[in-house]
């Protein structure tokens, strides 16, 4: 490990290698002028690189070193392969310019085109600049999800794991039990989900984190689907429902789709393009699973504080957001038994 860190070297080494990569990708007249680490993305580094009228985004492992601990993620070379497969299926995504090779000296990662827009939920949901985008975003998301779910499964990166609804319940239940902290609401949701599991649909490529924060939005709507690291093989309704989870409505609860749109609009576009007949009721079970998963993810993040791995106030405070998902689960259980 120390050898790899030494190879990554100092900042000036990084700049030299970035400059060489830039010229290699954009031609010998292209020179690196600026590079800047963008905020967001705790598990990966994202850099904006500019020079000679060219811009690009570098996504790479922290410090260039892949972290085996983040086992849910598929790894950056696989992520690049997925983005390319999604592009061929007509999904709006950045174009992959180069998957980093060992000879680039920058570690694991890939270079892709820069797509302008906004990822942060608050301005997307509130600012006038996105008023028109909000009108059409639900149907655009429906169409993009149908395209993602149409990607041919043969030829996808072998790192992709298969995980349907019941497998995810088993996976998250094991994590929850490992904490040995009783949360009766999670217990009830786990048992209810198991007792009411729907028959699975045919397996498709699932993005796994399709929500505001992971989507590039501009004035005309959906510009690009980003952050494919949680992609897996699974159930198409998982992606639709994740976008409906109340935590991802960012306070705009009355708009079930991401805080910006209505599920009927998304499903009309989705069903037309996919040929499936997904109904709003089909999404309920998956939305409950989504809230449960996010609650347990918050417990995992708090655990990093509790064990001393991450002493930040942010990691401590997220433990007091678990109850947000508990009240959402209560609301969903009440609706199911109304």
């Amino acid at each position: 490990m120390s050898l790899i860190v030494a190879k990554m070297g100092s900042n000036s080494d990084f700049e030299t290698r970035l400059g060489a990569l830039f010229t290699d990708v954009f031609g010998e007249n292209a020179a690196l002028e600026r590079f800047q680490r963008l905020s967001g993305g705790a598990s990966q580094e994202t850099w904006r690189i500019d020079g000679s009228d060219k811009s690009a985004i570098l996504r790479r492992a922290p410090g260039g070193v892949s972290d085996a601990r983040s086992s849910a993620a598929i790894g950056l070379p696989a992520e690049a392969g997925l983005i390319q497969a999604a592009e061929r299926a007509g999904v709006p995504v950045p174009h992959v310019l180069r998957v980093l090779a060992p000879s680039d000296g920058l570690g694991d990662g890939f270079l892709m085109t820069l797509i302008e827009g906004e990822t942060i939920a608050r301005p997307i949901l509130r600012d006038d600049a996105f008023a028109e985008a909000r009108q059409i975003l639900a149907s655009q998301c429906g169409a993009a999800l149908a395209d993602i779910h149409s990607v041919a499964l043969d030829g996808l990166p072998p790192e992709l794991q298969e995980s349907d609804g019941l497998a995810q319940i088993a996976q998250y239940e094991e994590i929850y039990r490992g904490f040995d902290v009783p949360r009766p609401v999670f217990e009830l949701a786990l048992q209810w989900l198991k007792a009411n599991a729907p028959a699975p649909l045919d397996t498709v490529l699932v993005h796994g984190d399709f929500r505001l924060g992971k989507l590039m939005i501009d004035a005309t709507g959906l510009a690009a689907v980003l952050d494919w690291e949680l992609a897996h093989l699974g159930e198409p309704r998982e992606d639709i429902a994740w976008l409906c989870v109340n935590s991802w409505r960012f306070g705009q609860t009355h708009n079930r789709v991401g805080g910006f749109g209505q599920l009927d609009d998304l499903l009309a576009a989705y069903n037309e393009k996919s040929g499936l007949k997904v109904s709003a009721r089909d999404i309920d079970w998956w939305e409950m699973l989504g809230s449960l998963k996010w609650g347990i993810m918050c417990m995992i993040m708090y655990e990093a504080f509790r064990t001393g791995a991450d002493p930040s106030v942010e990691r401590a405070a997220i433990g007091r957001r678990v109850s947000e998902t508990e009240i959402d689960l209560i609301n969903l259980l009440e609706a199911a038994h109304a």
Partner: protein
Amino acid sequence: MHDQPSVSELGQAVKNFIDESAAPNLTGRAAFHARVASNALATVLRDLDQRPDAEAAERARLLAILDGSNEASTGALNRDLSARIQAGDLTAETPGLLSHLKATTLAQVEIDQPRYSGLKTAKD
């Protein structure tokens, strides 16, 4: 022992310092963490104020649902409740279970995140 200032007053004083002195002088990641710290202190203050009554009410409901012993700690009662839900002895159809969990969760979110949208949905 003295309590001037009380724990609540000390917490409020630290929150005032973060909000009025520290945060305005910070940028980027540190400014973000100052906001998180201020919100965490607000949770601490609400917890000090609201937890005793909320836990007493939770305990009374748990004893009624479980027909439990007054000797048991509230933590042990919640462990028992979870085990019975896991075993299928108590379900969403069990009279009083969902309303107990809702009352407990409402009190918890009022402390943790009183502006959370799901709280309003639950009260409507």
